[in-house]
């Protein structure tokens, strides 16, 4: 039974890693058409995430694979239930990835602008949709006694879930703006900071509204009591500290703070769900949990052993790439791509 908890934590970690890492590169993708005024600036912006975005996306693919392997019922209910949402997500991911690859291959300005806007669209949709999905994880969705989702696409769209979508979207954009301020110089850096400052205000506001709405829409507060404990409070505090670090031009700290906001928010959500993985709004008994949705102990044990053996190497070489490509980018230099 301890293995079920380990895999819940592992999947939570993979999703958190995905929100943190892909969060900033979604943010960068969203800001590209706005902060990059010339083609060269846009290329510079894209190159700040060039070496990373693909591996960042693998965090999501691995989370999906781990979900399939460790909790097949969670995977089956979620993917067949949120069908149209996942369709939109996939289209966005496909368009986004090819936009990176295609935009620089032809130097026609119209070709490039088209791909830049497709990159924008492909970067806006995923964090929004994941925010909507997370809100639905928290509030519960119509799941019947056979673990099947019996609602429609429109059941997923509520004021609460839209607020969840906007929260993650704005948080990612803020995170991306701060990342840009870390990886660029001069004018571009100033522009990124200014953007972060403005989006930070909006993100804090929307996150606050989302927290208030979650009082009415979820059992978060009844579950953890009136004293929310350290984690959600830390999420709020790290977010509120961002403007001060921007003002002090401590870009590294500011970026660390949004990282922490995402980490703590994500932990809050998973704490609220635990030990459930999909909450049924029809009958609490029909919820999927880490026990009734899981694979057998043998499977979980095999995967635990393999993960323990492989994961350290994955983390090590990913960290190494961030080290190799840590330098700030300046315009005018030779840019691969």
């Amino acid at each position, binding site marked *: 039974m301890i293995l079920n908890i380990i895999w819940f934590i592992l999947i939570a970690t993979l999703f958190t890693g995905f929100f943190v890492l892909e969060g900033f590169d979604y943010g960068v993708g969203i800001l590209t058409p706005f902060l990059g005024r010339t083609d060269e600036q846009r290329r510079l912006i894209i190159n700040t995430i*060039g070496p990373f975005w693909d591996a960042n996306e693998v965090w999501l693919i691995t989370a999906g694979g781990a979900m399939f392997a460790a909790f097949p019922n969670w995977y089956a209910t979620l993917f067949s239930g949120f069908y149209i949402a996942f369709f939109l997500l996939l289209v966005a991911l496909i368009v986004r*990835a090819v936009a990176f690859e295609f935009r620089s*291959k032809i130097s026609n300005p119209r070709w490039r602008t088209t791909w830049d806007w497709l990159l924008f669209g492909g970067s806006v949709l995923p964090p929004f949709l994941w925010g909507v999905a997370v809100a639905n994880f928290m509030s519960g969705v119509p799941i019947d006694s056979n673990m099947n989702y019996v609602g429609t696409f429109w059941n997923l769209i509520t004021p609460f879930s839209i607020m969840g979508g906007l929260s993650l979207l704005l948080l990612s954009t803020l995170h991306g703006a701060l990342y840009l301020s870390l990886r660029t110089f001069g004018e571009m850096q100033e522009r990124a900071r200014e953007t972060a400052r403005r989006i930070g205000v909006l993100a804090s506001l929307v996150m606050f509204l989302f927290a208030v709405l979650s009082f009415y829409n979820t059992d978060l507060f009844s579950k953890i009591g009136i004293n929310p404990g350290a984690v959600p409070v830390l999420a709020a505090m790290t977010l509120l500290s961002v403007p001060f670090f921007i003002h002090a031009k401590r870009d590294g700290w500011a970026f660390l703070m949004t990282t922490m906001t995402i980490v703590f928010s994500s932990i809050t959500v998973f704490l609220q769900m635990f030990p459930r993985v999909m909450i049924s709004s029809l009958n609490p008994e029909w919820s999927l949990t880490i026990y009734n949705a899981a694979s057998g102990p043998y499977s979980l044990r095999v995967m635990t052993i393999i993960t323990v053996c492989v994961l350290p190497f994955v983390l090590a070489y990913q960290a190494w790439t961030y080290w190799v490509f840590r330098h700030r980018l300046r315009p005018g230099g030779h840019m691969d791509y």
Partner: protein
Amino acid sequence: MLNVLLARWQFGITTVYHFLFVPLTIGLSVLIALMETMYVRTGDETYKRMAKFWGKMFLVNFALGVVTGIMQEFQFGMNWSAYSRFVGDVFGPPLAIEALAAFFLESTFIAVWLFGWDRLSKRVHLLAIWLTALGVSISALWILTANAFMQEPRGYVIHNGRAEMNNFWALLGNPQLWVEFPHVWFGALSTGAFFITGVSAWYLLKKRHLEEFTRSFKIGILVALASTVLTIVLGHSQAQHLMTSQPMKMAASEAQWNTSQEHAPWSVFAIIDEEHHRNTYNVQIPYLLSILAYNHTYGKVEGINQLQEQYVRTYGPGNYIPPVWVTYWSFRVMVLAGLLMLLLALYGLYLMLKNRLSQHSAFLRAMIGAIFLPYIAHTSGWIMTEMGRQPWVVLGLLRTADGVSPTVTPPMIWTTLLGFGILYLVLGIIDVYLFVRFIRQGPDLEEDTSEMDAKLPHPVT
């Protein structure tokens, strides 16, 4: 049943499409790694230009392979949730391990390779492309582990109404996997080799960049020959394995309605009447099927009708016959494409050794066309493999019709089927357009894309 039909079409289309990119990715990654190894060992800049030129095509192709692959992973849950619940315990782990052990490796190091030319030492940079090649091959290994389970379930027990893994080594040691994986891998290598040879042939015809493309052609033709021979040999052993593991698929791929006589002839061309379980016309080569099946001139091959009766006794009433026409012809198309590849590669080697390539423009033109042969071969190969397994999604355990998502309705599948269909079509067109453009530009215009940027004023900070 409309939802089953639509979900199957979607799976078929997206998988075949995905598999247009995968083999070239595997093949090119190995060939580029070889070229860069030559560069590091000899210091000859020509090899570096070659690696960069083919690398550019590799990247576009790689990106499309990755994004269409995400679709594959999601699709099991979206359209086949009952299947996912039933086999998740056994089928999920290879997918999860694929992501963990292969996707991270390839996506990290391909970026290191692309952005690291000026930042890393030659050796570390070379290591990056080899690790990418390793990653894509490991990826194929794990995905085929999952596929082999569907063809020949191993390492599981049925418990609580679903398949649960009880022996990981049996899953990984599945005999089906070890005939399937090498066949697919060498087929992929030959795809990369024929691609390089074909594109190089175009340059040799146009007499452009002769140095780079004579070398590319030579590497390509050698690898093409070796990998095609191995693919055929391994394909033969895979077919022999089918005799015991999936006799129905074998019988269907031969349109063998009734168990053969002791010396079984091989059908070259048959007009199949599926309704009446007979072939109205059949051209056969004596003894050949026995030879193909058992490596000697005698040996019976079981027939569809007898197997059907046997399966009804084992699994209860039902139709256990896969679409015979499709299985029969896709098998023959694959074999024909493979044989053509073998002949072309042999003739190419002969011309190369005689140093007569440049005079033989008809052959060079043929090699441009031959780029498509591996694609035809593995598309038809997969159609045979997957259609031949019907009506099962997991052989003997779960029928395809029982695997679909019960709550996903036909209009929903239509939406995604059309959505992905149109998107894939557009991307395919752009992909081909870019490839043709790259090829026309040639390797020395590699800096072309930065020209426009160079003309812009650079604010100095």
